[in-house]
């Protein structure tokens, strides 16, 4: 589904990604862990096409297409979803209008008719229940005045609406208390199928108690320096990132 080969990316003059390789197949859950500043969020942003970053080398194919040649909106239409670490507040844009535009743009891309108002509202209602998102929030402006937990639930709600092939969850656990974490992770698990895949980016092992990964990768200084199964996450939790640094001879 996703092949990342030797991906390099800069912000301004500073190189953040220094040759990332990663392959994700349908049905898989990959966790990407690593200390602060290792490039985890940059990887997520670059894959989603954030214009703040410049790709300086490497290639990414996504479902047979050259991902890096697509605009952010077309990456979304092709089925790539990013759950933001810091969801943006957009006063004056209502959640309903935002989601209707997003869903119908996706349908347009696929040559489908726009959803009728009734169908759209029914789907909104169904998907809201997956993350127990209050109807009141759905009628407000996008993320405006939402608590940290509500923002993250809202991300997963949008993921449910758009039914992506590949979801990248960037630090979805940050700022969540244990109850919210359970709801959010529960939502992700409900949306899991054999056809879609998830990349979970996290600093802590905690989230992986709820969303079980098939593979765990350690990103450090812009490269994936270690990959393994779920046990790697536990090892990291026990030994800390210093252990990786020592292994690398630092």
């Amino acid at each position, binding site marked *: 589904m996703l092949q990342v080969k030797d991906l390099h990316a800069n912000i301004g003059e500073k190189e953040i990604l220094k040759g990332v390789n990663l392959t994700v197949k349908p049905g898989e859950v990959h966790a990407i862990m690593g200390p602060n500043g290792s490039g985890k969020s940059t990887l997520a942003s670059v894959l*989603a*096409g*954030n*214009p*703040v970053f410049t790709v300086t080398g490497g290639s990414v194919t996504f479902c047979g297409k050259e991902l890096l040649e697509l*605009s*952010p*909106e077309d*990456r*979304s*239409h092709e089925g790539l*979803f*990013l759950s*933001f670490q810091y*969801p*943006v507040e*957009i*006063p*004056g*844009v209502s959640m309903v*209008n*935002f989601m209707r*535009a*997003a869903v119908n*743009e*996706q349908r347009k*891309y696929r040559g489908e008719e726009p959803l009728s108002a009734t169908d759209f509202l029914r789907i909104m209602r169904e998907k809201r229940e997956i993350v127990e998102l209050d109807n009141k929030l759905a009628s407000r*402006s*996008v993320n405006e005045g939402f608590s940290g937990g509500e923002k993250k639930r809202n991300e997963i709600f*949008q993921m449910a609406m*758009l039914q992506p092939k590949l979801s990248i969850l960037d630090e979805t656990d940050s700022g969540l208390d244990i109850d919210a974490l359970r709801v959010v992770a529960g939502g992700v698990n409900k949306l899991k199928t054999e056809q879609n895949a998830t990349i979970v980016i996290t600093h802590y092992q905690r989230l992986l108690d709820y969303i079980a990964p098939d593979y765990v990768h350690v990103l450090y200084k812009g490269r994936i320096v270690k990959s393994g199964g779920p046990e790697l996450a536990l090892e990291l939790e026990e030994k800390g990132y210093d252990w990786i640094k020592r292994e690398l001879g630092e």
Partner: protein
Amino acid sequence: MAASEQYIQLLENHLDLIKRGSVEPMNNARAAAVALFRKYGIPSQKEEMFRHIDIEKIYSPDYGINLARVAQSATNEVYRCSVPGLKTQSIYVVGDIPQICEQPDEDVVIMNMSKFEKHYPQIAEKYYNKQASQSLDGTVALNTALAQDALVVYVPDGVSMKTPLQIVNVLNATAPVMVNRRLLIVAGKNSSATILICEHNLSETQTLATQVTEIFAEENSNVEYYEIEETASSSYRVASLFASQEANANLIVAPITLHNGETRSNYHIAMEGKGANLNLTGLAICDENQVADVYTNVHHTSSHCESNQLFKNIVSDQAVVSMTGKVLVDEGAVKTISQQSNKNISMSQSARIYTEPQLEIYADDVKCGHGATVGQLDESALFYLRQRGIPKEEARMMLMLAFADDILQRIKLEPLRDRLRSLIETRLRKGDTKCSGCTMCK
């Protein structure tokens, strides 16, 4: 001074003609206005208050003025302008001649001054030019010196205007002309009035429309004044609005510029009675070489008043917008609450935005704040929308409409709010200048 000179000449040569075409209350104010204009003239761009617009350039062309009061025929059919879903009583001001055809609201008096001064001479004398005469702005004095007729809206004590009044200002000139319009609104004690001004200019030639509006909001009155400017690129407009608010009077003044040429708007609001409340809200969308220059002066002379100003601009191309907003709180005006905010979005490198808040506070125990922002659309919000599949142009549109939305939220007249929302969208999408609700725009 060259610009001033031709008007001084005009006043010297034609004062009798001007007076003959006018009526007593207006002629009574004229001599002092002429003297004031001789003293101050057309303001130069060197003056602090006029730095961002060239008023002398605006007044320089050799405009024709209809001093002989040749009536232009206008029927509602020719110039009809309407807001879908909003029932209004309409007055057309063609050039600077008010044409009053219908008057369904019987308790409210809507007349031109020549008729009004016969029926209500004391009211005319008591209110006409009483605020404007305090101004030291030469453009205001010149309007008083040249204006020959005024539209008067008089809402007596205790009367509520049942149907909103729509005043459609129309200019359709084939040669350069100057029109001098005058509007007097008197809202008596415990009265209410909703007034919508639609400013249209169909002229393809250079024109100058000057306007002086005076609003007297007496005790416990509620006045809503909306203004939609939808004029041609060759239109110059210099408009001054004066309002005084007595105790517990509520006033909304909301000018929206959808399309214009170059406009200078002054708002002088005096909060003279305890507990008065002001909402002064504006939006301008400017592109190409358009100029929208706003000056506000909110004077708190009484205690327990609240003023709220919010002006927003969306500019692109070489457009220039500016807002200079002064809030003056007198020594006795304790418990004043005053908020002023100016927010701007620039869509191009070559557009210019000037913003200058000025606060002068002489009272203790007040809550006053001001703020200004100038920037581009929020890149992180733009990326967020695009990540969800909304194309870049559509995402930009959503953010611009969202930016305008809190201005719309302050417009109480719901059909107007809905109408404006769609007009703003059309304007931003197509650069369209047509509001298409009226015969004029078809």
